């Protein structure tokens, strides 16, 4: 069983990381997108904080659903519906007593359903998919997350704004993969991973 309290501190921590690194995310998105990924997610993080502060959840599914709905309605851009769909899909999965890897897999399914990206297209999917493998074999760490992140550098974008660049998208880290890296670093930090 995944602990609701720990998940709540995970998601709070994710918001903090995104907010602290707003400029960095904007910079990554300026290189291959339109420079707003950090601003978009920071807006979402503030709204999530407002929703979660002082709130305590009994059911994981309610927590994920609230976070998903807040993100969908506050973030905008591509990442709003994508992260939102991920958490809403995790909310559904949480009803089935899912373990962590099943939950994150459901999150990935939500992202893929919304955005139709496959691995290798230089999107957040290239963070989520290998992270799930690492969670399954117990090897998820800050180092492995960073390794996964660096691999997006060599990829050529074929989804989202970065795809307009074609070959020129090569050599840059994908902003969405970076924000998802914060998500999974927060997962480790909050101790959700040791369940």
């Amino acid at each position: 069983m995944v602990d609701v309290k720990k998940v709540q501190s995970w998601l709070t921590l994710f918001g903090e990381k995104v907010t602290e690194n707003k400029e960095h995310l904007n910079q990554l998105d300026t290189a291959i997108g339109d420079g707003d990924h950090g601003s978009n997610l920071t807006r979402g993080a503030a709204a999530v904080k407002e929703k979660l502060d002082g709130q305590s959840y009994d059911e994981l599914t309610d927590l994920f659903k609230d976070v998903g709905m807040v993100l969908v309605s506050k973030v905008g851009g591509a990442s709003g519906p994508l992260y939102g769909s991920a958490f809403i899909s995790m909310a559904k999965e949480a009803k089935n007593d899912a373990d962590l890897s099943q939950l994150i897999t459901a999150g990935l399914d939500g992202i893929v359903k919304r955005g139709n990206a496959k691995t290798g297209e230089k999107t957040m999917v290239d963070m989520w998919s290998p992270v799930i493998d690492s969670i399954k074999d117990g090897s998820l760490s800050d180092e492995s997350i960073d390794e996964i992140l660096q691999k997006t550098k060599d990829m050529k974008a074929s989804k989202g704004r970065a795809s307009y660049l074609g070959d020129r998208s090569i050599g840059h880290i994908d902003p969405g993969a970076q924000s998802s890296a914060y998500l999974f670093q927060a997962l480790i930090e909050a101790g959700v991973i040791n369940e």
Partner: protein
Amino acid sequence: MKKIINEPDHVVDEMLNGLAFAYDSLVTRIPETTVIARKVEKSNKVGLVSGGGSGHEPSHAGFVGKGMLSAAVAGQVFTSPTPDQVLEGIKAADEGAGVFLVIKNYTGDVMNFDMAKELAELEDIDVEFVIVDDDIAVEDSTFTAGRRGVAGTVFMHKILGAAADSGASLSEIKELADKVNEQLFSIGLALSPATNPEVGKPGFELEDQEIEFGIGIHGEPGYRRETLQPSKELAKEFVTQLKKEMNWSEGDRYAALVNGMGATPLMEQFVFMNDVKKLLVDDEKLDLAFRKVGDYMTAIDMAGVSLTLLKIEDDQWLDYLNAPVDVIGW
């Protein structure tokens, strides 16, 4: 950054209030939303909704009114609006005959509007849509998110708005929109970049005498950088690219839009139109049956122009373009 603003993240809110106050005979802001809706009596016609990131003024709120959009939904600067806001726009536009969405082809817009469509259908509102993708600077392949929606979207608004006003059904509008989209082509260039107030610095850099062809309306990179040339040479590049795409023949009928990107004076836009006329009318012998010049789909304070051509396949399209409207920006 030098801008007439207060807090950068209040720009959209304050802009919408200012717009709604200045034109309160035409439009109203739906309270607690980023929706600008027209003030006309509902008459069981199809509602027309568009929207997208802010920073493209007068798009899209400037085209709300009788004969064009029923409502426009504004996102943050250069960021697609969220599904709940688009849903509010759909509800404001609904007159009982369904609502049609004009979406520009950007990943964010497509996803958010699609979610809004699902939400509206849960509330028993029929929704159809077109995804405008007129920017020929982008290769249309499975290796990209597809062609972007740019200034041609404004012709889409005008034609569909007139059709809706004349009582066309949701499915008729859908069919018309798809046909128009197939004949709609645009290409742009930038002399200098835009500065998103929320970001505070230019989205890209260009040297003093450098320009970029094929730039997108959020500063997405184009296909070539060059030293600035006379207007007629710039026009020639546009016409060459458009001709490759459209394969026209002498006498074909077109609508043309010379669109300013936000920081290019009308004086220069008219000079550019004069060159477009020489190339398309005098040399290529096209019939430019409808013409517009001005700031229609801007990119904040980017300097540059775009040229949109719509092949007029049906006389009715011209009538729709010429039909009178009561909006801020046409």
